[in-house]
């Protein structure tokens, strides 16, 4: 009986989480524009979506910014972890404190602060300012995931490699980098998803005329919801589902080989 209520509770929460998304998916196949009456199965909203220059442009911007921001943030963040290790304790504390600010601060404040400083220095808002802002808020996540991997053992192994006659570059490539790699990978993934999902910071640091998926949805919803957005939701949901499934399967595989 207890088990029954437990499972019932899981089902209720799952329904709460998934029914709204399911509604969007069902409505994306509705021929009528209505939100409440399903007339006939149709794919016309998908057609509209794939012909909309606005949506396609926003998709390209979203993914290119996310990819570039995650890549650059991962490189800078990993380099930072390596360099910081040799600094004085007090310098480290100050730097890590500053590093935590964008993570703890509300997005709206981060976004506004970035926008103000761009405008103060006469930098016009556009693709590059969005990219810069995304790199800024991604770096802390990279450092957060790479730093725990840079520990005493990494140091000792590196020095052992040097003692055994490896050059610094070789020892770094063969000893330190593999040690950091899982952290680097998860930092990259975390950055990528944070960047794709971001709306608030992009909203403040984008100029007129450039949209990511999030800002496009926001401006469209203000005018009135178009069913092509349902189609977009369905596509995004499916992409997320497939990517997560693939990642999950890899994880399970890795666990099996590890065991």
């Amino acid at each position, binding site marked *: 009986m207890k088990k029954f209520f437990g499972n019932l*509770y899981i089902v209720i929460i799952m329904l709460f989480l998934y029914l709204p998304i399911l509604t969007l998916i069902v409505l994306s196949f509705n021929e009528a524009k209505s939100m409440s009456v399903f007339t006939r199965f149709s794919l016309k909203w998908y057609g509209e979506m794939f012909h909309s220059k606005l949506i396609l442009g926003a998709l390209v911007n979203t993914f290119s910014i996310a990819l570039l921001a995650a890549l650059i943030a991962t490189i800078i963040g990993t380099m930072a972890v*390596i360099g910081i290790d*040799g600094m004085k304790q007090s310098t480290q504390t100050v730097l890590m404190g500053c590093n935590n600010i964008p993570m703890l601060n*509300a997005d709206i404040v981060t976004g*506004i602060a970035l926008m103000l400083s761009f405008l103060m220095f006469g930098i016009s808002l556009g693709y590059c300012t969005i990219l810069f802002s995304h790199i800024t808020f991604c770096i802390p996540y990279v450092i957060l995931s790479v730093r725990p991997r840079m520990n005493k053992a990494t140091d000792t192994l590196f020095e052992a490699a040097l003692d055994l006659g490896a050059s610094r570059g070789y020892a770094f490539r063969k000893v330190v980098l593999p040690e950091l790699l899982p952290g680097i990978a998860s930092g990259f993934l975390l950055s990528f998803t944070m960047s794709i999902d971001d709306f608030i910071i992009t909203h403040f640091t984008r100029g007129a005329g450039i949209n990511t998926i999030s800002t496009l949805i926001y401006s469209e919803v203000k005018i009135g919801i178009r069913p092509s957005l349902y189609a977009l*939701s369905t596509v995004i949901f499916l992409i*997320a589902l497939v990517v997560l499934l693939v990642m999950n399967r890899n994880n399970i595989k890795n666990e099996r080989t590890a065991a």
Partner: protein
Amino acid sequence: MTFSKKWSAPFIVFVIAGTVIPILSIAYYGFTSRDGGITLDNITAMFSANHMQALGLSLLLALVSTLVCLIAAFPMAMVLRDSKFGKQGFTIFVLILPMWMNFLLRTMAWQVLLERAGVINGILQALGLPRQEMMNTPGAVVLGMVYDFLPFMILPIYNAVMKIDSHLIEAAYDLGAGKAYVYRKVILPLCVPGIVSGITMVFIPALTTFVISNMLGGGKVNLIGNIIEQEFTVNSNWYLGSGLSLVMMVFIIISMVLLEKFDKTGEGTFI
């Protein structure tokens, strides 16, 4: 240590250009007036009646949605611990999936459900029941917040609950503790880090949001986030907007410090 400090040079550039200078510029605008003089007017503007009302409403709605999330998430985490769902990473998968969906689309889904001509009213009508006005109410905004942020509450609590050694719980029962006592004295204290990070991850975004209140409140539910956003995008009064943002930052810092006090172990987990 053996590596050159130069490696962190690009990072330091980013910390200065992307964090320090922006914070200084928001402080600069917050403490100056249009004619360039130093003033506290932008800060004290928070105490004007309509700003206080917005701040109060923001605090109230954020508190309510955090509480609802907590009440819904804790039993969920406990049930997942005992059920076979808990294994195989399936749970995490099912909880993370909605988080990967753009949160504007998720909020839009509730708009579709709650709208006057929306799905729920369509169902009510088909059943011969009267239509309900659900949009543009504080209730709709709270619902949106709970929906958007619930996974952020469940995951850290779930992580904390899964770490609890079941021997501890069994030992407490063996020593004669009742069910309520075990929850209060064993399970709850061990969940505190998870609960604290869950609360942080729900309360602060809920307190500062302007998107959910805009989409589900239709301009009728004015939160402090909306007011700040309008100062920048509609009224172009950067000075006032920055001043109010500074005050909001103070509120964030206060809530962080308060939460930190509870999490004595400091092992709160972000996701």
